[in-house]
């Protein structure tokens, strides 16, 4: 895992840069920008309502819960609906607690692999992670490498996200702004804005849910503590 600057043998680098700079010397007449300050996207007035609405459109499940106990019950229910097999969980105190509370028939007997033990197994039945923020405008969740790694949100047929209403931001611009402000990429090699379950429409433009990634994306969204 190299983290220091590396040297790449780059015989054409200067040539390409030279060609770019030479090309840019050509003057190009460009139309002046038209009116500024036009509003591109409808402002989001009620982020929670919008997020839930967009989740439906994105074919994801969003369960609103009042407290930790309710979230644990919700988690147990989701896990019960899945076939037997290992689940992968981001190693985080809040998720350890949630798993403990949900320790009903659904979880007990199911092997758990924690992200501190490495990547999720190929045959994982589900993955459970946190998210950095939730985006109301597009019904998306933003995950980073810190949320259990890269595979955590794509390897298993079901991805469960445990989040709090306070993590909601109104729109994409805010979410991306936060990545910049918090210098997320100083500590993470990866981030992803996920908006729904994996899908394809490559055959006759017919929508098929569950292509290579999760068929189900479940957000357990808690409002209380």
């Amino acid at each position, binding site marked *: 895992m190299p983290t220091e600057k590396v040297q790449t043998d780059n015989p054409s680098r200067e040539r390409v840069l030279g060609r770019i700079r030479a090309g840019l010397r050509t003057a190009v007449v460009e139309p002046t920008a038209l009116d500024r300050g036009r509003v591109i996207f409808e402002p989001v007035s009620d982020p929670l309502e919008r997020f839930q609405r967009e989740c439906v459109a994105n074919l994801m499940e969003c369960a609103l819960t009042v407290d930790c106990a309710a979230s644990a019950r919700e988690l147990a229910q989701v896990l019960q609906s899945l076939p037997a097999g290992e689940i992968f969980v981001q190693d985080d105190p809040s998720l350890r607690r949630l798993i403990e509370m949900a320790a009903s028939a659904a979880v007990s007997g199911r092997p758990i692999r924690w992200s501190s033990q490495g990547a999720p197994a190929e045959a994982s039945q589900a993955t459970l992670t946190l998210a950095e923020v939730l985006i109301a405008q597009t019904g998306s969740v933003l995950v980073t490498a810190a949320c259990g790694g890269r595979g955590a949100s794509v390897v298993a047929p079901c991805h469960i996200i445990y989040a709090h209403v306070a993590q909601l931001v109104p729109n994409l611009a805010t979410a991306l702004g936060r990545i910049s402000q918090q210098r997320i990429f100083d500590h993470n090699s990866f981030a992803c*804005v996920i908006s729904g379950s994996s899908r394809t429409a490559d055959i006759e433009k017919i929508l098929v849910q569950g292509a290579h990634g999760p068929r189900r994306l479940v957000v357990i969204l808690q409002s209380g503590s």
Partner: protein
Amino acid sequence: MSTAAQRFLHDAAEKSADLMHREIIRRGMDSYDAAHLKGRARIKDWEAARQKCQEIKREAVNHLDRYLLQFEEKVTARGGHVFWAANGEEACAYVTNLATRLGVRTVVKSKSMVTEEIHLTPALEKAGIKVWETDLGEFIVQLREEPPYHIVTPAMHLNRGQIAKLFREKLDPAITTDDPVELMAVARRKLREAFFAAEMGISGANFLVADAGVIAISTNEGNGRLCTSVPRIHVVVTGIEKVIPRLEDLAVLWPVLATSGTGQGITTYGTLIGGPRRRGEADGPEEFHVVLVDNGRSQLLADAEQREVLHCIRCGACLNICPVFRHVGGHTYGTTYPGPIGSVLTPHLNGIKEFQHLSYASSLCGACTSVCPVKIDLHHHLLQNRRNAVSAGANKPSERWMFRAWRYAMLRPQSYELGGWAMRKALRLIYRLGLAGSAFDPMQVWNCYRAPVPLPVESFRAQWRKSVRSNGDSAT
């Protein structure tokens, strides 16, 4: 006529007469149109969004060197490699050498048009490496040993029956269904083995974000996610023009690309990757390489009229709306990038002599320009390419003579009239002899498929004069 042009004419005639093909494309385009309109309605001010995207790309392209260097600095500081390739051969050689050096035997690829452009897969295969296309559409055309039909939906020319048959022949003779859900499941199972066996994942990039030093990939299936998460090496192959200045720019570019590409509000996975796996991360590739491909792009920077062609975000909207594409189909173009953007770009990348005919594969209706989310003036660029080809002497001598004669006549009304008279007489005779549409017919190209347009008895000028006389001054 170049061989490419002859092939184009031949395939275009064949494809437009292929009713099954037309039906498949019509249905596909109908569902795209509906989704696209719905998607656009979700954006409050679509025109403002287009303008914003145009400005972002313009700023990036006009300072290409600066933004690329900023991107490179960030990536290398995190332990990633950035390789600058002047052309396709250099890019292929870099990736192939890397793969050989690191003992790669299997590569999984997610969709990337640049890798098609530089013919990366054949280069890797020549080195004995197995390459799997993992996007469902790409996987299908790879099994058919065909290039992608469309830059966003590579297998849109096939119906489920044809795909089921293909899977039966190539993957599993026991497949009985043609249900898209089942067919996807078959592909998923097959490719799953590849994902977890491959040592190298190759992806493209929709954007290179300069200030954050990350690549951005938009995918729906999750194959791009697996390609960039599971194998131990990740190679990104992309064009130099993909850079954008700021991460926040994606707040507009992502929704606009999704809307124009498929009609979605946003693509399922907007992935950002800034380097190899870091210490403490659960997974991810240990090596991260970005190959920046020039391959003729920097020449376009010097083109005062057409620099903006580099703004293209490869959404495919201009292909979908183009009446020519809808009739002749993607393969007819015989180029990596089909449709209006391909017709504009290909002569620049692959030579104006060989590919000038593509500038004429357009009615200049301007539909492409009207939908382009980064506002590229596509149909005017086609017109400029026609002019450029003529100035470069790429047109036929007979055409040059004809236009010279026409110009002469246009400047001399009497000779024009004489020419018109002679043409009417000659055509009338030819039609009377039943030779319409034959090699003797100057209107052959039109008449061989259609009933001849009835010839007027008198010229327009004669009719005009008469009407002036009968209407007195009202016609002046």
